[in-house]
């Protein structure tokens, strides 16, 4: 039996000696400009933001708090600043189809200038047109037109009246029109007088009237045409007068914008529109209020405002002439916040809208630059993900509300012209989301071709330690914290190593580091120090753990008060101390558990009671099945495994998962089969494979510390310790108390490679090696187990009747 030695204290925790770096405190260290341990991510970012081809958008993923956004911004900002400013975008009225506003693209920084000019132009137009209509010249010309048409009307009727008068017929104005009636001396003949006329005279009058009616009808029919002609003339006059008043104003603007054909075309449209709607400017607002009824005046003023408003522009995006390409971070990526929205206002109880109420979204603001979005928030917003994909696919921004997209509402709204989209989208999320989208969304890889994978750990090398010290210095400066002395830095390094659970790795998780430094700074400041020392860091860690470990204390308390049964001394058959890890939020701790095994004659089944009651997870069940096969393969190759064994986590009332207790359960089973007691001063962790090799598990530090705390409470005897997989030795970053106890020989950590090694440590009896004839030494553990199993097999065989004694199938008793 080869003796398994406990690990020396030096193997239980990695210490950092920073003397070689030659600094007293971090204020002497240079700032670290590159993110630490993120070479892969940085290369991906550089590539992603550089390549301008379609679909090369970025998806940055990594653990939350790993500094993804900050790193991306660090590389994005200089790149964006070096790029040309994108154009400004405006919406203008579509004078032909008002519910389809048109887009106006302007050179960067000029949209606001045009908006101001249009505002002042429209105000001037309002004044000059009103003045033009009030001018004596206009009034005279208008009167001339009116008088001309009056004369034409009068001529028509005068001729008729003269013709009628010659025949003693009067032209009479009725309430609704005109009529011809017999008259004498300017008075219409009454029926009595008419009846006194001779029949011949009456007939003559009637005939004359009938003859004149044709002329009257022609004259009456001419009236609407004359009125139309008059309106046309007046309209022409209005256009002429308005045009004269407005043209020079618009010409000035046209000259100013001659280098921009789109603006010139817009000004042409405005000119036509204003001239075509000159009627609404005939009265000023004050005059309208004074001279016409209030409701009509309100309507008139609204029309005037509407015409003015239609000539203005809605600046959707205007860029500062000093900036580069925009970088937009949309914190709340709803459909409307991405695409923009069409707002409505209430007018007399109706919701109305126009091109001025189109509001930009993040895509508009980021167009020509970069848009950063939180992937999880984007996915959780209804239809936001699909909308973003559609816009990226079509490379244009189409402003639509959700109800329009889903055809839910029937309200009349706008259909603004689409805007060409040229944007680089950077999604930031967690790895799970990235892999889910990769697997389930066929569009994903067409649109997000650049994965930016942020690592949260880096290998420990001398160079890495030096860089990490600068990283700490940089973080401290960035957060305006006290500098750290060497001790402080080494404590931080130990903590960051512990967070990875690997002595050969350092955590590059920015948030964890930042929080630790901030807390240490607090404690250093509290004691009035000018530097953050190792004690401050330790205090910060201890305080952080203390704030989170109420549940751990409660668990320890239950062991200490004997409510949870667990021996830390003595020996028991079929009973062993296992170790598990509980994760509560960001805090995890180890908890010892008693695991027991019972065996009896049976049909080769190892019963995992946790699984039977559906408290065991699949990984736990897997471990139990492995050890069941291990038993069969190792000890009863030629015979049936004729036992029933039961395994249980005593006093466990919650779900159990993971296979880290599989070696522990196997030890308990071997003890029960061999009827050899196990030392209760030891606890075990590690998974086992079918060949009896012990494999690495997670949370080794928490597990050891959980058992250590209990043993320390009961008193360290020097016998206590933990068996861990040998492959986990490199993960040991145990707390100082454990290391000190190990140094003093009060607590032991045994690295175990095989089940045989482990059982020997636990029982003090050799496991026994198989001889050439396939037998184990009878007093060894393996020999005893094999003998017991063979005994079970023999007993089982006796229970089975020989086949010859059975009745042939199909034969009846009679």
């Amino acid at each position, binding site marked *: 039996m080869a003796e398994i030695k406990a690990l020396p204290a030096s193997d239980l925790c990695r210490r950092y000696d920073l003397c070689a770096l030659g600094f007293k405190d971090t204020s002497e260290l240079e700032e670290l400009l590159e993110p630490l341990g993120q070479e892969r991510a940085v290369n991906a970012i550089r590539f992603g933001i550089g390549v301008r081809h379609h679909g090369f958008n970025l998806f940055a993923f990594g653990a939350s708090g790993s500094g993804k956004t900050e790193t991306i911004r660090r590389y994005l900002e200089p790149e964006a600043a070096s790029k040309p400013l994108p154009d400004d975008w405006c919406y203008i009225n579509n004078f032909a189809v008002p519910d389809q506003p048109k887009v106006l693209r302007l050179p960067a920084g000029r949209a606001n200038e045009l908006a101001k000019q249009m505002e002042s132009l429209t105000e001037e137009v309002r004044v000059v047109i009103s003045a033009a209509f009030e001018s004596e010249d206009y009034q005279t010309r208008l009167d001339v037109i009116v008088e001309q048409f009056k004369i034409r009307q*009068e001529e028509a009727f005068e001729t008729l009246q003269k013709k009628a008068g010659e025949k003693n017929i009067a032209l009479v104005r009725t309430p609704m*029109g005109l009529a011809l009636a*017999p008259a004498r001396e300017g008075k219409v003949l009454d*029926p009595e007088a008419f009846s006194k006329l001779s029949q011949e005279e009456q007939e003559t009058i009637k005939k004359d009237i009938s003859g004149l009616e044709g002329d009257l*009808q022609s004259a*009456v029919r001419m009236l609407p045409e004359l009125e139309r002609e008059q309106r046309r003339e007046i309209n022409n006059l209005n256009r002429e007068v308005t045009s004269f008043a407005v043209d020079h104003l618009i010409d000035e603007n046209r000259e100013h914008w001659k280098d921009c054909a789109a603006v010139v075309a817009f000004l042409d449209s405005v000119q036509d529109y204003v001239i075509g709607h000159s009627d609404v400017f005939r009265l000023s607002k004050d005059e309208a209020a004074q001279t016409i009824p209030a409701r009509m005046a309100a309507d008139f003023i609204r029309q005037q405002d509407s015409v003015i408003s239609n000539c203005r522009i809605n600046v959707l995006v205007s860029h500062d002439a000093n900036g580069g390409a925009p970088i937009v971070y949309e914190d709340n990526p709803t459909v409307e916040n991405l695409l923009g929205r069409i707002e409505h206002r209430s007018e007399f109880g109706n919701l109305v809208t126009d091109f001025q109420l189109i509001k930009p979204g993040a895509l508009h603001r980021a167009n020509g630059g970069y848009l950063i979005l939180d992937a999880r928030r984007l996915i959780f917003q209804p239809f936001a993900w699909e909308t973003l994909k559609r816009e990226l696919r079509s490379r244009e921004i189409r402003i639509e509300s959700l109800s329009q997209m889903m055809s839910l509402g029937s309200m009349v709204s706008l259909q603004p012209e689409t805007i060409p989209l040229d944007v680089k989208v950077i999604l930031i999320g967690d790895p799970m989301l990235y892999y889910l989208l990769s697997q389930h969304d066929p569009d994903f890889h067409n649109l997000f071709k650049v994965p930016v994978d942020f690592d949260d750990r880096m290998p420990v090398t001398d160079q890495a330690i030096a860089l990490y010290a600068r990283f700490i210095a940089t973080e401290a400066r960035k957060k305006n914290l006290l500098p750290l002395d060497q001790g402080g830095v080494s404590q931080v390094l130990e903590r960051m190593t512990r967070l990875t659970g690997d002595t050969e790795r350092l955590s590059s998780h920015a948030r964890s580091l930042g929080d630790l430094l901030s807390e240490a700074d607090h404690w250093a400041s509290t004691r009035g120090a000018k530097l953050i020392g190792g004690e401050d860091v330790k205090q910060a860690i201890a305080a952080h753990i203390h704030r989170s470990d109420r549940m751990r204390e409660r668990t320890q308390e239950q062991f200490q008060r004997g409510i949870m049964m667990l021996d830390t001394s003595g020996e028991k058959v079929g009973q062993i101390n296992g170790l598990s890890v509980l994760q509560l939020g960001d805090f995890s701790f180890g908890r010892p558990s008693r695991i027991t095994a019972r065996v009896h004659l049976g049909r080769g089944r190892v019963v995992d009671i946790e699984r039977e009651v559906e408290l065991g997870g699949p990984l736990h069940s897997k471990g139990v099945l492995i050890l069941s096969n291990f038993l069969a393969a190792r000890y009863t190759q030629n015979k049936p495994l004729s036992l029933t064994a039961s395994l249980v986590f005593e006093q466990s009332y919650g779900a159990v998962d993971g296979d880290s207790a599989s070696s522990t359960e196997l030890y308990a089973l071997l003890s029960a089969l061999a009827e050899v007691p196990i030392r209760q001063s030891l606890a075990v962790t590690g998974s086992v494979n079918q060949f009896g090799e012990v494999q690495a598990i997670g949370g080794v530090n928490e597990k050891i510390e959980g058992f250590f705390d209990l043993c320390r409470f009961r008193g360290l005897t020097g016998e206590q310790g933990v068996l861990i997989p040998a492959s986990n030795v490199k993960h040991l970053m145990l707390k100082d108390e454990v290391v000190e106890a190990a140094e003093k020989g009060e607590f032991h950590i045994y690295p175990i490679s095989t089940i045989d090694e482990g059982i020997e440590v636990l029982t003090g009896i050799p496991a026994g090696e198989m001889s050439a004839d396939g037998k184990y030494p009878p007093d060894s553990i393996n020999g005893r187990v094999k003998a017991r199993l063979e005994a079970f097999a023999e007993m089982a065989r006796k229970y089975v009747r020989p086949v010859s004694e059975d009745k042939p199938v199909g034969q009846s008793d009679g």
Partner: protein
Amino acid sequence: MVDMVVQKYHRVLLQMDAATHCRETMAAAIEIAARLGVGLQGIFIEDSDLVTVGELDFIREFRLSSPIARNLDKLTLDAQLRAMASSVRRQLERAGSRRKVTVGFHAVSGDLWLEQEKSMPETDLIIIEGTGRLHSRLYRTRSSKRSALQNIMRPTLLLKGGKSLTKKFVVVCDSVDAARKGLQAALALSGTGEKEIMLLPYGMAAEDAKKLATDIEDINPKEEKGIKIAPIVVQDVASVLQSIHPADCILVITEWGQFFNLNLNAERLLESRHPLLLLQ
């Protein structure tokens, strides 16, 4: 020195009939009443000629809104007149309420209104529309309009086409007294604020004209500005019309016995587009 007393008006009478009623006329009348600070009495006259027309069974009406001629019977005509009277009443009341003018209204038949007018002694200004919706000044009741004007003994304002009144007046006068009367009426009608009044001597002897020029200082109240006298004395209506400026001024005629007795004069003034204020 002669004291200048501004004419006080107490009640304005607006006369309308089927041919002459229009919304603009009512608005102008209400505006005048508001300017004078008096009430307005509206009279809608059912023209006797129209009533007679309705009684003849072969008369056909050509409506302005339809190309088809219809037989015009008495019942239809009565209904039309009644509907029109109601409409006029509503419009008057609405316009009066907007300008805070007390409005009265009634409809009468035929020439009865002249008798009624006499029975309303508190009425001191009568407003008559000189044109109708067709803007025709000639074809409709030319003679009856003139005879009506000649029969009325009160100040009468003849509107033309329902235009709102300006504050520019031309007073045609043949004596200093006539000038004073005309000036009083113009001042009353113009209300407060800026105004422009020109005295235009007509057929006046040189001495009288000189006296008028001298007396203008006396008859012109000190607080009023913008009153002036034309430099020439005109001798015929053509000269009057040529001397009138601006185009939309109100022509105040204060000696119309002499002026209107000549049919030619009356005709030309009626045909002109200037509103006429006739003072007996």
